[in-house]
């Protein structure tokens, strides 16, 4: 169920986030708009800003853990996203820890295009409430 509250106690290492499918990418989402300029720069034409993909990855995390739970999100932009691409964001729990009553869940996150090529890889840390 989307936006359901997730408790630290119920999360296990290996749990997977529900995949979030975004796209196809539309012209208006390409913040790099000048195709000729992009070709001249050796980029093979216009492409989406990396922050669009990172925004998608952030949403995949918060759709699962809740808005306001993200303590840390870091990504590497691995490949370019272009017009009409479909981006699927995924994630997996890789660690859990508690310190000073703060419950942290560490996630591996990534996004891939319709050819299963990774366009973003990264990590997220979320703070979750405990049932007790």
């Amino acid at each position, binding site marked *: 169920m989307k*936006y359901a509250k997730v408790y630290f106690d119920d999360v296990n290492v290996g749990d997977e986030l529900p995949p979030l499918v*975004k796209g196809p990418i539309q012209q208006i*989402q390409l913040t790099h708009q000048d195709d000729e*300029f992009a070709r*001249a*720069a*050796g980029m093979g034409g216009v492409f989406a*800003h*990396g*922050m*669009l993909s*990172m*925004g*998608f990855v*952030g*949403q995949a*995390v*918060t*759709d699962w853990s*809740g*808005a*306001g739970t*993200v*303590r*840390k*999100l*870091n*990504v*590497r*932009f691995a490949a370019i996203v272009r017009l009409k691409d479909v981006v699927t964001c995924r994630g997996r729990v890789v660690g859990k820890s508690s310190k000073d009553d703060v419950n942290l869940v560490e996630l591996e996150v990534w996004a891939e295009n319709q050819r299963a090529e990774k366009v973003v890889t990264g990590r997220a840390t979320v703070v979750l409430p405990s049932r007790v």
Partner: protein
Amino acid sequence: MATAINKSLIGKEYPPYPVTVERGKIKEFARAIGDANPLYLDDRVGAASEWGDVIAPPTFAITFRDETADSAAFLRELGTDISRLLHGEQEFEIFRPLQPGQTYLCRAKVVDIYEKTGRSGSMAFVVRETTIADHSNEIVATMRGVTVVRL
């Protein structure tokens, strides 16, 4: 033709700049990334939440700019131009969500510049960090970006 990157910028700190978060900007940003989370978009849901108002999505601070600064000056100082740039990495650390009506003070710094040669040629990596403090000077978030310059 190889471009020389000005490594003397390492350690450079920029003048602090204030950013006041507008309610509408949070909503525009959420819609731009296609995230309809009511905690970003619905004032009533925000008011009833533990935050007391809507909050910004985790990557929202990327919109923060020093409106008084010449945005092209940094690239000139670095010795490059926008056609050579790629966004390599980005990180946000958030201690408290950013909220509308709040004025934050941002402090940006160049923390590192290094070069690498890979399959696609020589590249410089420019690492910049920005801390975001609230009105009581408490750091509520930091962002760290790596800009790749194709040399």
